[in-house]
């Protein structure tokens, strides 16, 4: 391995830019080394499903050309990016972690992908995930689980496990994931990196394979708050290809990371500390103490509908999924199991193609929408969703941000929960609420357990207040919050 490749794992976006500007390395040299390093490291975690060296090197050449001619190479110049394999990339296989799409090569790029490349970002490859982003452990990938970089017998978390692991391992500077019920924040917490779920509508979903459209978000990962904020800055903003993307003004996130958090009012929701394991509670509460030392005012608050959030989420998410996954019918998406009639062909293709968790969710979603059950489940859940959003609205009248754990416990063993779907779903309790309310939320590392497993702390703010969230997270990080 070259000297550059060996030092690559800890580079942040600012150091990359400094090195490029000082001509310590070119973007092409950096990209070649990053690809080499990522391919050597990958067997340890199974984080990447596909590498795209041609695309990466072409992007790097564009950056080098701009640098040579004195043109602005963009805010992400030379920054390596791993992209979750549910986000489409033109000409680069996009599997969604599914057998069904093993050979699917999209004819277009997601808006987030176009924007990050225009900003000078270098996509190295596509990362492993739970099939169609359905899972909390990455064990539902048709291509094998992602191993936690801190403990190979434990899960990376999911569903964006590959993106979290890639950033934690240092094979990419930043990564894109997607979050429907915690799929960015939970693996970020398990792998000790920063993971952000922006406000619903902040980032275009165009090119994000649909799981549950009213809950799906694209979100960034980074080893620092600054890098995650930088990536969000480049991909955020209105896109006419996604009617739900917001017109809201986009502030300069980095400029707002000024360390000033004195007097910020923070709420600790008591419902989020019930049932929290002591090994996760320790680092989170230490994090809260640190925020107090920085001058934040902390008070206990209540979000009473929290205990209903998992049931609410799994009704709405599976209902939407059952409709969104109807398109995988053996006609348009590469894989077909032949049969004599059209209907038998659909059934055979879907029966053979989907994994166990996808089938479970399609079945559940179809059931809760079916005649006679719609009011009892789906409509009821939509009303409970209103109550959950109301809880947050009321809380944000009193506090500027909410501090909470990310998951009840740190990364669990591979295989430990896979046979008990209810237990697996219940572990999403602290993350599904943010998605249901559409508010921005993020996971920042706040320390480790006695056994050395990372623990994440969650910060949630008002709709479109990512800037306030980043300012708090950045001050926390700089005060040493990450090391606990």
């Amino acid at each position, binding site marked *: 391995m070259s000297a550059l490749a060996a030092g690559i794992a800890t580079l942040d976006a600012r150091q990359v830019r400094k090195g490029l500007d000082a001509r310590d390395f070119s973007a092409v040299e950096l990209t070649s080394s990053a690809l080499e390093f990522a391919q050597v490291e990958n067997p340890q975690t199974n984080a990447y499903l596909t590498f795209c060296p041609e695309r990466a090197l072409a992007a790097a050449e564009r950056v080098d050309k701009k640098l040579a001619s004195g043109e602005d190479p963009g805010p992400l110049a030379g920054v390596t990016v791993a992209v979750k394999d549910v986000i489409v990339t033109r000409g680069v296989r996009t599997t969604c972690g599914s057998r069904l799409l093993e050979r699917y090569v999209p004819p277009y790029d997601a808006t987030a992908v176009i924007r990050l490349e225009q900003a000078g970002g270098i996509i190295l490859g596509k990362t492993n995930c739970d099939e169609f982003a359905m899972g909390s452990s990455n064990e539902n990938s048709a291509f094998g689980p992602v191993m936690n970089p801190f403990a190979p017998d434990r899960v990376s978390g999911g569903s964006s496990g590959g993106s979290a692991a890639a950033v934690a391992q240092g094979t990419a500077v930043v990564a894109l994931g997607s979050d429907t019920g915690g799929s960015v924040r939970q693996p970020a917490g398990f792998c000790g990196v920063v993971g952000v779920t922006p406000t619903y509508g902040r980032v275009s979903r165009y090119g994000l394979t649909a799981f549950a459209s009213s809950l799906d978000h694209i979100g960034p990962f980074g080893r620092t708050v600054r890098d995650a904020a930088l990536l969000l800055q480049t991909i955020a903003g209105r896109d006419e290809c996604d009617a739900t*993307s917001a017109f809201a003004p986009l502030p300069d996130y980095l400029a707002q990371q000024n360390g000033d958090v004195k007097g910020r009012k923070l709420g600790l929701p008591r419902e989020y500390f019930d049932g929290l394991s002591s090994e996760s509670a320790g680092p989170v509460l230490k994090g809260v103490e640190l925020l107090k030392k920085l001058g934040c005012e902390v008070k206990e608050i209540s979000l009473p509908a929290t205990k209903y959030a998992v049931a609410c989420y799994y009704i709405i998410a599976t209902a939407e999924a059952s409709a969104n996954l109807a398109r995988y*019918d053996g006609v348009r998406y*590469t894989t077909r199991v032949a049969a004599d009639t059209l209907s038998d062909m659909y059934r055979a293709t879907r029966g053979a193609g989907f994994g166990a968790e996808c*089938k479970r969710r*399609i*079945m559940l979603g179809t059931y809760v929408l079916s005649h006679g059950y719609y009011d009892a489940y789906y409509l009821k859940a939509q009303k409970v969703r209103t109550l959950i*959003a109301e809880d947050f609205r009321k809380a944000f009248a009193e506090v500027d941000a909410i501090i909470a754990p990310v998951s009840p416990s740190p990364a669990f063993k591979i295989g430990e929960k896979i046979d008990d779907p*209810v237990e697996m779903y219940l572990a999403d309790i602290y993350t599904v609420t943010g998605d249901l309310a559409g508010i921005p939320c993020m996971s920042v590392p706040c320390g480790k357990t006695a056994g050395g497993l990372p623990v994440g702390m969650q910060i949630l703010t008002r709709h479109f207040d990512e800037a306030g969230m980043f300012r708090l997270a950045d001050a926390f990080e700089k005060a040493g919050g990450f090391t606990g």
Partner: protein
Amino acid sequence: MKITVQEVRYVADLANLKLTDQEIDRLSKDLDDILAHMDTLNELDTSNVQPMAQVLYEAEDTATLREDRERPPLDNATALLNAAQAGAGYYKVPKVIER
């Protein structure tokens, strides 16, 4: 029991999923457990609550409409690149209509 094996077969049919007997058995148990948990929602009185339709409900109804402009679509060959089976510029499927 929240759901019977017959209902599971019926739902699989609605969802266009061919399942093995083993999968049906497993799903009957799993869905039963999950639906039992879903029933906790009935503890909440929601008779005066509006169902949520959109999380950013403060926005105007027309806030996200765009101008209706022509744009070139994917060309036929590109659109068919991922077809399971294609022919003469179309997707091919098993015969649907008997003559």
